């Protein structure tokens, strides 16, 4: 078998890295490495990669200023296909690695690509803490509800009763709802999208990139080998039109081919789906992603526990909060610019000293 080539140096000095002009002219090619992509044919990851590479030029950030950090799992390979700086870490720890990169270097644009096993099982702790700290990183969680790289065990997002190699009698675990988990961790930006819906993925990425601080994006990603069709309700033609509930800030939430269904309040802390014809347009809930308290976003997250029927996608929450380490780093740099051997000398001599002659 030929060697796997995926970690090479980026093509030196694209137009992007020469900061000559006022407007940086970048193209998808500037973000695409020369490495052969090695996911299974038909994997949803290809679609997401294309969307990300296609979207990046519009940020106007040279690829030299970007860092992708990944963990272990199929999604972990993402880093090798982006012609940016990249770090492929160990299982579950990408948010912690990225915290180190982003806090030490606020001048960089730092992206984490992870999966449901990586982020929600072995690395759950780092995910929630990077979100609550509001570290300036963008986390793209490829949720395929299965362990792909280890060949098909159930994951923390697999549905209860899932029959896999490791659960021949069905899993007994209650799955995580990643959006609800992120909201529970007080994430300032929480969104969900679907791998093959390039336009929607791009919209969500755009909002995530514009957000100051940590952005969490769950991407429903089809694993056609070990869990094919898990997201058909919101992904397959003929079904998605009926089941994608697109959340848009400031708009009444309605969906369906003719917008014939919508979301209404059924009681305190609870939303439900209704026919617009029955309840009237005025009864529909208006989405407010900017609301300080995450209550409404959480209610939307609870509207469907699994993408098997009508399921909200889009930006659930997008609020402003102080960004971890940003001002701090400036202060530290200013301070450091002023210290040298003399200050070090003073520091060593601080406290009670005595001299022996």
């Amino acid at each position, binding site marked *: 078998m030929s*060697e796997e080539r995926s970690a090479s*140096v*980026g093509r030196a000095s694209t137009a992007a890295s020469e900061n000559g002009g006022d407007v940086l002219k970048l193209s998808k090619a500037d973000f695409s*490495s020369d490495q052969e992509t090695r996911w299974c044919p038909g994997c949803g990851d290809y679609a997401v990669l294309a969307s990300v590479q296609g979207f990046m030029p519009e940020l106007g950030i040279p690829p030299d200023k970007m860092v992708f950090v990944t963990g272990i799992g199929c999604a972990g390979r993402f880093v090798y296909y982006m012609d940016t700086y990249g770090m*492929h870490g160990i299982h579950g720890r990408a948010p912690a690695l*990225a*915290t180190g*990169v982003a806090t030490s270097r606020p001048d960089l644009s730092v992206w984490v690509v992870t999966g449901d096993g990586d982020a929600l099982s072995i690395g759950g702790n780092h995910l929630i803490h990077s979100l609550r700290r509001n570290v300036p990183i963008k986390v793209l969680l490829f949720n395929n509800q299965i362990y792909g790289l280890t060949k098909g065990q159930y994951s923390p997002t697999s549905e209860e009763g899932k029959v896999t190699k490791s659960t021949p009698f069905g899993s007994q675990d209650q799955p995580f709802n990643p959006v609800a988990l992120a909201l529970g961790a007080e994430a300032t930006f929480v969104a969900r999208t679907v791998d093959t819906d390039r336009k929607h993925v791009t919209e969500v990425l755009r909002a995530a990139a514009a957000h100051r601080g940590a952005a969490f994006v769950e991407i429903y990603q089809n694993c056609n080998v070990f869990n094919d069709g898990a997201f058909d309700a919101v992904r397959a033609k003929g079904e998605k039109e009926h089941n994608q509930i697109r959340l848009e800030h400031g708009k009444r939430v309605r969906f369906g081919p003719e917008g014939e269904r919508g979301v209404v309040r059924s009681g305190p802390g609870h939303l439900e789906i209704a026919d617009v014809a029955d309840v009237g347009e005025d009864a529909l809930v208006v989405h407010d992603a900017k609301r300080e308290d995450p209550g409404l976003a959480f209610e939307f997250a609870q509207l469907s526990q699994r993408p098997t029927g009508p399921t909200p996608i889009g930006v659930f929450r997008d609020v402003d909060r102080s960004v971890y380490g940003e001002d701090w780093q400036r202060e530290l740099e200013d301070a450091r610019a002023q*210290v040298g051997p003399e200050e*070090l000398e003073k520091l060593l001599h601080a406290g009670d000293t005595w001299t022996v002659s």
Partner: protein
Amino acid sequence: MSDKTLEKKDRVVVRFAGDSGDGMQLVGSRFTDETAVAGNDLATLPDFPAEIRAPAGTPHGVSAFQIHFASRDILTPGDHPNVLVAMNPAALITQVGSLERGGTVIVNEDGFTDHNLKKAGYESNPLEDESLDDYQLFRVPMTSMTVRATEEIEGITARDAARCKNLFALGLVSWMYGRPTDPTIKWVDKKFEDKPPVRDANLAAFRAGYNFGETAELLAVHYEVDPAPAPPGTYRNVNGTQALALGLIAASVQSGLQLFYASYPITPASELLHNLSRHKRFGVRTIQAEDEIAAANMALGAAFGGQLGVTATSGPGMDLKAETVGLAVALELPMVIIDVQRAGPSTGMPTKTEAADLLMVLYGRHGESPLPVIASRTPGQCFDAGLEAVRIAVKYRTPVILLSDTFLANSSEPWALPEVSKLPDINPAFTTDPTGFEPYKRDRNLARPWAVPGTPGLRHRIGGLEKEDVTGNISYEPENHEHMTRLRAERIALIADDIPELEVDDPDSADLLVLGWGSSYGAIQGAARRTRRENGARVATAHLTHLNPLPRNVGQVLGSYKTVLVPEMNMGQLVKLLRAEFLVDCESYTKVDGLPIFTRDVMDEILKRVRP
């Protein structure tokens, strides 16, 4: 000024012991400062329970502080105290066993109530029966005398007053050894400047204790310890934690790299986090991470970003960080991991010392995963060890593990301040030129380029998967893995050319070499000097700072002695390594009781092996 007998002593070991709420650590550190000002050489050993406030009056709650000071240079906090100050029965019952026979016991008589005696496990009052006959016992009603001394102070209740009894004890012992009172008075003034009644009560208690020593009938002698002759220079008293923090900051200044320190709270390494987090002025960023694993990853992420990534922990945290350290080995990025060792396994004894992580840090990662290991030997030398760890990490683009231990972290000694102009220069030598750049192309030290994000034209991806030599591309090729595995080993082994040879102190052409590593340094040196002086023993000593790679001449040194004795605070880890590496049948002396190795222990081992 007094008719009391003044006795000259050349060395004294005092141990203060009381309930963990009694302020014994404070008394100890104040007495240490007074002693430093008096010009004695000194070494200290705090000894406190793991529980913050164990049930008052019980043996579990006893907190102690030992100080050894002398008129000549000393190397350890002392084996057996000459004087024990016990504030309650629990302190007495747990500590009296370590006191030298005939030593002095000063008790706070007021603490010896029936209730406290019972809690400590005494059947009868040791002050009344004959159990302390072997010692010189002084009963001082410290609590009631403190209360009386502070009666006049407004705003102080009897309860507040009683809490000042530790200052009474400090005053008393300060008088016994002719310590200057100024440093303590100034300290109390400053510490309680916002609380005048508390300040006055503490000062009153301190003076009352001092005056009691001078006037009371029962303390018949007081002692004087002459200042120690020390090499010229400016000195400061530091513990290992302070010295290590200063060493890391110095390394940051010398390298121009911002210090990025991430750690998770753990005894005894937390003190380093507390210390470094105060040094924002030097650009030090500290992060209290969500766990040990995150701390290591954050430091490694910062290293990728071009900063000086450091994390510290103790045994349990080292277990957790192992996978990340392995990643750093694969990424070949500079990083320092500090292990302040404590007694294990598992949670073990968090506040007690041990040096049993050596084999773990050398071999405790999966796969062939070599990295440099350095061990500090004295509190002050933690400064140099910190600098050296950073120097090697940066120059060779490798994670470096620095071993300290509970004893070094907490104990203190006078430290001759280094000259900043003589500190090593550390050059990060970032790669900026895209011409011919390859992520795993090596320089003559076999180190790869440090090309940080943001550098135009040097975009590259690195990870834990095996990499092709030079290009860094992922590779599963058999020849490449073999080659890379050997290359990683060779790169670390080569560092031996860049470290000093093992120095041997052998004034009498001895047949016996005592070889140590880590904090046993003081005990080994002290034992060699004393057995030479007192027993005419011919004994050589040597001490390892670099545990991987070992200095080039170790094999030759081992081969030139008939007997090599290796004292260790573990079950014989270095000795295993030396035997395997050099086929020399070194002899092992091991001690795993949670206490440092004592001078006496090593002396006994030396005397078993030499004919005077």
